[in-house]
């Protein structure tokens, strides 16, 4: 990338963040706000450095839960959209259930899931899956339905087999939508993990936040939020880099 484009692309958001942080720091200092009420950015960074061991340890736990949850979620969504694609009646059967699963606030389900599946990894993974599979399925099903009927005809008129059509038409057509579904899923999976850890756990960033709040370790809460954001951003850019690689092969 050209130096100029880098500056053009990254300078505005970078400046905006910098200005917000500066304003924050200055107001905390000028209004002499106590750090248990609202820590300044400098306080948060100090906390991050002081307790990096705890934060890193629990970040890894949360990160692991998210990865497992996302992978399972992607597999489930591929299965469901595949079934919807192959069996027309399955769509009618599953759609009301899918919608219902989204109407019930997952937050209210979390305590029940903890009762059923314990406070281990499994209950968190289920919560993450419940959070993330819906946008994945919706994106996939929409993409499958949007494959141009005339393209399908064109493939058929060449005597294409089903497998050839999946590989050469469906896969590349669906890819962009699938990846944008993945991006959404990455970001919201973090929420799922935190909820799971908040309600029943003795580890993970959600748990760190939950126990730090009542102890007025506000800067640790903020530091945890920062770690969560980093996880979300990392995951997001992971998908973006996969996207760039794949779309170089199948550009649109």
């Amino acid at each position, binding site marked *: 990338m050209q130096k100029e484009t880098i500056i053009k692309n990254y300078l505005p958001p970078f400046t905006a963040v910098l200005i917000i942080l500066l304003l924050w720091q200055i107001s905390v200092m000028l209004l002499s706000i106590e750090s248990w009420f609202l820590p300044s950015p400098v306080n948060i960074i100090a906390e991050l450095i002081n307790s990096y061991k705890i934060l890193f340890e629990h970040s890894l736990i949360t990160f692991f839960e998210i990865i497992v949850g996302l992978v399972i979620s992607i597999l489930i969504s591929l299965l469901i959209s595949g079934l919807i694609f192959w069996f027309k009646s399955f769509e009618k059967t599953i759609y009301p259930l899918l919608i219902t699963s989204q109407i019930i606030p997952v937050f209210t389900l979390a305590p029940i899931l903890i009762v059923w599946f314990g406070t281990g990894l499994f209950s968190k993974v289920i919560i993450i899956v419940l959070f993330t599979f819906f946008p994945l399925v919706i994106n996939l099903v929409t993409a499958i339905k949007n494959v141009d009927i005339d393209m399908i005809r*064109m493939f*058929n008129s*060449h*005597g294409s087999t089903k497998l050839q059509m999946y590989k*050469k038409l469906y896969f590349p057509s669906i890819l962009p939508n699938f990846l944008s579904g993945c991006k959404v899923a990455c970001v919201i999976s973090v929420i799922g993990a935190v909820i799971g850890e908040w309600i029943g756990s003795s580890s993970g960033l959600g748990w760190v936040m939950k126990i730090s709040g009542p102890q007025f370790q506000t800067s640790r809460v903020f530091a945890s939020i920062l770690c969560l954001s980093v996880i979300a951003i990392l995951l997001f850019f992971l998908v973006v880099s996969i996207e760039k690689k794949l779309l170089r092969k*199948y550009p*649109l």
Partner: protein
Amino acid sequence: MLKELLKKEEQKNNNLINIKNINFNFYDETILSGINLKISSGEFVSVIGPSGCGKSTLLNIIAGITKPKTGEILVEGKLVNIGDKISYMQQKDLLLPWRNVSENAALGLELKGFSEQYIQDKISLYSKDFGLEKYLEYMPHELSGGLRQRVAFLRSVIVDNPIMLLDEPLGSLDAITKSTLHEWLMKMFSKFSKTIILVTHDIDEAILLANRVVVMTTNPGRIIKEYLVDRKLVDKRDITSNYFIQLKKDIIKDLSL
């Protein structure tokens, strides 16, 4: 002597495509009723008719991608697998946006399972005739409508099927591009000696390109008339000759019945 004569006579009657008694319904509505058409090798047949007369459906049936209610399509007297003898080109160019020109042109051959080397050789051979050798690395969105359509033609022609079905392939192009492509098309088809069925609603196009014009009508879709076009009397550019105008008048009369 007699045997040879008989053989010659047989060849004369030997139709490349035999469209036998095609009927097609869409729910309760009859779309096509009793379509019979014999086309011999090297013919260029235009099928013309009002919209809704089922001419595109007829092409889908000939291509094998739509099953008729009754009837069959025979090529050299036999039923054939989809894509084995017949290439089908639709109105939209249907280029895959994630493939460049050469990869798009290769699709038909790829689906038939030819080796990469064979496909590459064939594309470099054909792309010269199609004036596409400069564009092989281009993506579809970088090409003009006329060029895109040419790539679609290349994709259809390169599989070497003797029969080509064209569903208003120039319908989406502007008049100037259309007329240059007309001439070019005629050149290509005679060069690759194809038998062609063209579906169109443009009467000029139907007469200019074909040596037989089949007129269809609607409700239900059926063939009402056929005209043989004397190619010697139709100049590619001249749509004002008496012969052309008379033919056009006759067809318009048929269509307005």
